């Protein structure tokens, strides 16, 4: 994935988007780009024309992970021909070539974390297939939102991690494109003359300033010591236990597998799941190792800032701020982490 | 009058009595005027007022004026007695007042014209006791009548009133009282003659806290008025008797059932009750004995049958005064279902004197079975009518001739009817019968409440029987069939007989019905109602037979059977009968024998009655 040792910069013509869409369509490549729907939400959706593509948005509502780990996917299907006679059919057909055009660098950076999970002790075939067939072209973040804190978790509004290429849009004028990977290079190819290598010395724009709100290292140090802490109860009281933060989190990747069947046909599906749900850890016996919201809240913080770093040496958070923005009761990961940091430094 | 203080003890009473006696020294002049109903009717109250006026104008402040109860000699009212000489004036009128004050009071002169003149001896009697009417009487019941002022308790106390009560409450147990009364031999004066002490004992022995005593003052017998006299003239004696009886029986409440027609009795009794209450002689803790007793007056509504004790109880209870079947007797279940003792006025009045003077004293008076005296109301064709009190055992002759002064107009005595309407008629042959409960019953009459009606030869006994039965037909309550239907039928038969429609067998039917009604009636009204018929049938059967068989009424009463005729030999032609004849049936010139036109004669008998020569004859 990160097999391009040297990043290259390209200068893009104003109509580069139209050119890209035209070329990709000709090649049978599906393009997913930010689209503003009737209700005003922006989400990645298939596009064929540049007019459909939204550019003035902070971030997609549903994070980029949904392209590689759909909220529901059929793993296998089965047909029942008769009693005791069940035929298992293959799951979903492998996806074709796709280009994601316009995700934010934070979402793309999350792919690094997902990759480490889905290629860890077991290679997740559907994920891998989608990952392989998809080129991720992110748009560098010029105007971060009030909830953004990517810099506090090792990222940057202009981070290229996880992207195959990064586009730096500047108003309606010409843009810069930074190729990160071979897939990114291939994408530039498809642009033809609309992308010209940038003049040497062309500097990338400076990323916008963001306040660093906490230090993940210090957080981890505290977490290592404080599995049991009254703080968990205090910060979890108002949590309602919904899955909004998990589902909108670009790095959360827990899933549930269910069978859905009728009289003679069935599907085994993989769906998003959330550690905030009270039944997430419930055993068939009725026992629940995380019996209350306090433990479930703790799990989410622990997973992102202790267990994940322990295992993959990186925090499972890209600082997109969706969780804080979408919480109905103002439950705020940043504030929890700030509290933890203040606990650490009395 | 001293201040009306409560008499806490017998000693208080004695002290009061001493004060009263002292105040009324024997030498003091006192004008005592009878204020009984009879004398009042003849103007005694106006007389009293006149005396007051004239004494005042004469400046005679120290002369006492006193209104007393009935003296009994009502025939001659108004009666006035001047003390201390006890000069007895009768038939005093307003015009005599000035003379009496002037002569008798101021100058101690007797006015002979106002004195009673004995028709036999022609002697004038200066004091009451000399009057033959009183001479043969023994006044125990009437001990205070005519002497004390009934509206002043001090008079009563001065006359030893309430001494008996004080004695009883101070030292006798109820049993002792009952025994004393029983020992005295006192029997109920209401008619039944039941031994009073025994009656009390029965009531006393009934279980239950609440008991009542009742004084039967519903004097219903026509012509009888001795109870009225007592209630009017000596009310405290009644109250004292009742209080003693209540103590003996264990009652704390008494009722005085007074005949509605006796307003004066009610008034005087009310005064007496109020005074007795004030003096602590009624109410709570009488004489400090812890004994409580109150009396309530109930006015009767004028039914003869309310004199029957169960009828009387029903009347007090607010029901129609109708007797009920006994048993249970009132002593067991009487007023409001509680043991109740009923005695009549005269009986109650005897009680204080018995306890004051002792049973043996009382028992010494009278006959073997009947002790004490009896008050009779002597009426009818006698010269002296009024209330007479004689010892039990006095003969009819004594009463009728000695006291009553014999038959009017020198006619022949025929019979005396005793015991009220349900009593019997006693013929001349039994005139020497000593009068007591048992003797009267033996001869088919009864004591009753003491009515005594004297009849002369001008009395038809069938008519008399019919008269009394007519009264009873009207007074029967109508509850039980024998009395209601039987007496009525008897009356019908009698009516027929006197109308000349008598039939063979009527007398047997009368006897049969009479015995039936007596035996089968519910109460004693029915039980005695046939008496007038049965007793007249017993002694005067021939008169009935004459009515039926000969269609003749020898007494000239039964109009259908009578023919008046004037004996031309005897008639002097004085025209008296002619003038009095209401139908101008008599004709005849002066000094000529008169004759009666039978066609116009209505047989009223006026001619017969007015003829001074006996010329009018009955056929």
């Amino acid at each position, binding site marked *: 994935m990160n097999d391009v040792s040297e990043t290259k910069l390209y200068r893009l013509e104003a109509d580069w988007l139209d050119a890209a869409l035209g070329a990709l369509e000709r090649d049978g490549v599906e393009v997913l780009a930010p689209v503003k729907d009737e209700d005003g939400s922006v989400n990645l959706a298939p596009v064929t024309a540049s007019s459909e593509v939204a550019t003035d948005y902070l971030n997609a509502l549903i994070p980029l992970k949904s392209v590689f780990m759909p909220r529901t996917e059929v793993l296998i299907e089965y047909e029942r021909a008769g009693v005791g006679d069940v035929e298992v059919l293959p799951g979903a057909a492998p996806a074709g070539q796709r280009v994601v055009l316009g995700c934010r660098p934070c979402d793309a950076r999350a792919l690094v974390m997902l990759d480490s999970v889905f290629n860890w002790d077991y290679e997740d075939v559907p994920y891998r297939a989608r990952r392989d067939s998809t080129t991720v072209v992110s748009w560098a973040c010029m105007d971060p939102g009030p909830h953004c804190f990517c810099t506090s978790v090792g990222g940057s509004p202009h981070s290229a991690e996880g992207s195959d290429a990064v586009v730096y849009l500047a108003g309606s004028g010409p843009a810069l494109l930074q190729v990160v990977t071979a897939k990114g290079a291939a994408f530039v190819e498809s642009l033809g003359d609309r992308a010209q290598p940038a003049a040497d010395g062309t500097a990338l724009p400076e990323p916008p300033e963001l306040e660093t709100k906490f230090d993940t290292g210090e957080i981890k140090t505290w977490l290592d010591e404080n599995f049991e802490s009254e703080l968990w109860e205090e910060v979890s009281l108002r949590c309602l236990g919904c899955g909004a933060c998990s589902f909108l989190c670009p790095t959360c990747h827990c899933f549930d597998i269910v069978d859905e069947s009728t*009289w003679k046909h069935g599907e085994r599906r993989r769906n998003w799941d959330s550690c905030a749900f009270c039944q997430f850890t419930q055993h068939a016996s009725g026992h629940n190792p995380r019996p209350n919201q306090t433990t479930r809240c703790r799990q989410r913080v622990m997973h992102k800032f202790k267990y994940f770093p322990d295992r993959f040496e990186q925090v499972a958070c890209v600082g997109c701020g969706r969780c804080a923005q979408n919480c109905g009761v103002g439950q705020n990961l940043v504030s929890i982490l700030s509290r933890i940091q203040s606990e650490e430094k009395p | 009058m001293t201040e009306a203080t409560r008499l806490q003890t017998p000693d208080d009473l004695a002290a009061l009595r001493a004060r009263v006696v002292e105040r009324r020294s024997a030498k003091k002049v006192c004008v005592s005027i009878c204020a009984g109903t009879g004398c009042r009717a003849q103007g005694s109250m106006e007389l009293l007022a006149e005396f007051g006026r004239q004494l005042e104008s004469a400046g005679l402040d120290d002369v006492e004026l006193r209104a007393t109860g009935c003296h009994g000699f009502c025939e001659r009212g108004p009666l006035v007695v001047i003390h201390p000489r006890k000069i007895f004036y009768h038939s005093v009128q307003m015009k005599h007042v000035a003379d009496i004050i002037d002569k008798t009071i101021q100058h101690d002169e007797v006015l002979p014209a106002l004195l009673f003149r004995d028709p036999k001896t022609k002697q004038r009697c200066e004091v009451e006791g000399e009057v033959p009417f009183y001479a043969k009487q023994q006044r125990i019941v009437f001990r205070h009548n005519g002497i004390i002022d009934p509206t002043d308790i001090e008079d009563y106390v001065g006359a030893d009133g309430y001494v008996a009560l004080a004695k009883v409450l101070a030292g006798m147990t109820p049993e002792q009282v009952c025994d004393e009364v029983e020992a005295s031999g006192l029997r109920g004066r209401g008619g039944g003659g039941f031994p009073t002490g025994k009656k009390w004992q029965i009531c006393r022995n009934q279980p239950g806290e609440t008991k009542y005593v009742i004084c039967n003052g519903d004097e219903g017998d026509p012509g009888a008025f001795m109870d009225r006299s007592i209630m009017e003239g000596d009310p405290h004696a009644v109250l004292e008797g009742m209080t003693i009886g209540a103590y003996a029986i264990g009652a704390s409440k008494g009722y005085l059932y007074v005949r509605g027609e006796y307003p004066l009795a009610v008034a005087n009794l009310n005064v007496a009750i109020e005074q007795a209450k004030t003096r602590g002689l009624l109410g709570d803790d009488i004489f400090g004995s812890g004994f409580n007793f109150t009396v309530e007056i109930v006015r009767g509504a004028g039914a003869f049958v309310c004199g029957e004790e169960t009828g009387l109880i029903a009347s007090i209870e607010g029901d129609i005064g109708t007797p009920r079947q006994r048993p249970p007797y009132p002593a067991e279940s009487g007023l409001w279902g509680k043991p109740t003792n009923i005695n009549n006025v005269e009986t109650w009045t005897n009680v204080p004197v018995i306890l004051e003077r002792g049973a043996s004293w009382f028992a010494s008076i009278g006959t073997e079975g009947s002790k004490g005296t009896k008050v009779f109301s002597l009426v009818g064709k006698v010269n002296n009518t009024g209330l007479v009190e004689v010892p039990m055992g006095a003969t009819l002759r004594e009463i009728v001739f000695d006291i009553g002064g014999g038959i009017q107009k020198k006619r022949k005595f025929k019979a005396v009817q005793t015991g009220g309407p349900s009593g019997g008629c006693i013929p001349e042959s039994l005139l020497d019968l000593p009068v007591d409960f048992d003797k009267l019953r033996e001869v088919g009459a009864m004591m009753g409440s003491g009515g005594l009606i004297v009849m002369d030869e001008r009395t038809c006994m069938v008519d008399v029987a019919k008269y009394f039965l007519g009264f009873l037909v009207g007074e029967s309550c109508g509850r*039980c069939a024998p009395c209601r239907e039987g007496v009525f039928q008897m009356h019908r038969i009698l009516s027929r007989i006197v109308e000349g429609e008598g039939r063979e067998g009527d007398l047997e039917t009368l006897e049969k019905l009479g015995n039936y009604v007596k035996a089968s009636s519910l109460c004693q009204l029915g039980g005695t109602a046939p008496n007038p018929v049965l007793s007249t049938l017993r002694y005067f059967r021939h008169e009935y037979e004459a009515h039926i068989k000969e269609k003749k009424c020898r007494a000239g009463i039964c109009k259908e059977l009578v023919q008046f005729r004037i004996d031309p030999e005897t008639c002097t032609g004085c025209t008296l009968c002619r003038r009095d004849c209401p139908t101008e049936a008599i004709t005849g010139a002066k000094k000529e024998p008169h004759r009666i036109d039978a066609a116009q004669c209505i047989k009223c008998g006026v001619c017969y009655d007015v003829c001074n020569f006996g010329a009018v004859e009955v056929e």
Partner: protein
Amino acid sequence: MIKLHIDGQEAEAEEGQTILDAAKGLGIEIPTLCHHRAIPPVGACRVCVVEIRDGGRPGLVPACAYPAQEGLVVETASEAVRESRSMTIQLLLARCPEAEVLRKLAEQWDAPPLTLDAPLDHVEPPKGVPEGAGDRDKCILCGLCVRVCQDIIGPAATAFAGRGIERKVTTPYKLLSDVCIGCGACALVCPTGAIDPAEFCSHSIEKIPNEFNLGFDTRTPIHLPFPQAVPNKPILDRENCIHFRTGGCGACETICPAGAIDLEMEDEIVEEEVGAIIVATGYELLDPSVYEEYGYGRYPDVVTSLEFERLVSASGPTNGELTRPSNGEPPKSIVFLQCIGSREETGPGKPYCSKICCMYTAKHAILYKHKVHDGQAFVFFMDVRAGGKNYEEFVRRVSKEKVATYLRGRVSKIFPHDGKLVVQGADTLSGGQVEIAADMVVLAAAVVPSKGATELAQKLRISYDQHGFLSEAHPKLRPVETNTAGIFLAGACHSAKDIPDSVAQASAAASKALGLVVHDRLTREPTIGIVNELTCNGCFECENVCAYGAISPKDIKDRSGATVAVLANINEGLCQGCGACMVTCRSKSIEVQGYTDNQLFSEINAITR
């Protein structure tokens, strides 16, 4: 126990009893007039006098009022007694020569012919009473009427006025009484029949119609519901009973020798746990007044078949004498109309055949001929449906033997004319119009279910058809059962039925019921709800919807006994398994066994495959 001697025999009496009571105990009859068991005695008439010979004050006393006392020696028919009694009877007879009771007593007690004069000519009736009302001449002044009104019933509408021979029973001031409640107790207790409350009551007195005789006669508040009732015991009709209307009376309680009446007794809901219920609510007739052309309800001589049945019944209002309700004359001609309201597809009638009318009309024709030998009977019919053993033969005999003339056709109109009812109808067999002048018309009205049968069915949760007849579980296989286990049908509540069919169904229902109850244990449907206590929220919305009260709170306790939750609990005995709770439960914490969500889910899956 008090012991006394009556007529030489030893008698026993309780405290408070009278000589009369004691004599009765010995079977000695003492005549009475003014005595009534319910009313305290007064001893007024003296007919009951007996002679006390010893043990008390000797003499004649009234047996009814004289207490039985220890040691009394009593003669009830001594010479004195006989004489007194005879005289009393004579005296009363003299007053009331017409009184039957006195005449009878006179015969019995040898009261010689009247030799006495009658008393007052008349006892005046109260003002305003029409002349001739009542029979005041029969009043013997015993006072029972006064006492019953005053002491037992309470209003004291009557009282004695006057005394002695002028005593009479009257109302206060002789005015018509406003307080009289018209109960008739006075008339009831009157020994001579002298009093009639209608005479002095200021308002009209409503009599109670005898329901069993369909209002053709009247009854008292205490009555036998019908002859041969089972149990054959009188019943008390609270609505009309004086005691329950005014609080007075209660005489029945006093006089019932068995002490069987308890007026304090309250209606009580008797709860019985039963193993089976047989519904036999029967039928009634359609009210034929909906057909104005027949004039039922307007013409008294137009009656229903059921009314006719009462009119010819020996135990009926006329004691079996068939008379026209209008004038009491025997009907010389009679017309029976069949199918009144039956087999009618439109209109107020019923579409079904009432099944029993053909047969009972034929029977009625025969009964009619038995009662009125020279009478003429006609029957209008649509079809004769005489399906049944010997039925056809019976009907044929009636028509062939000219018991009745059968006319096939409908009647169009009935109207009165000249004291008769003219029946206009069609005779479709001859094709002509018929007009019959009848004395009486009998309508064979349609059989309909009893009123209230549907309400009962709703309570029992059994089904019924559009006519209100109760439905069997299966017309062929389960004809006496209902849809609800343990409930069976018998008789006409199910459909129009004649007697043999009803008996057959009743026998079948009884057998079915017995089949259930003979077992110690009842096997029942296991389809009841079960609560999942792990998921129940304890909101108790299920309790709200349960029609059986089967759901109640249950405390869930931890090991220390502390209540940790209050959850729904289903009483399996009460639950009927309807499933309403299941549907109401949002957390799906109740399952009705046999109809679980899983089972139904599978069923839906299977159906839609």
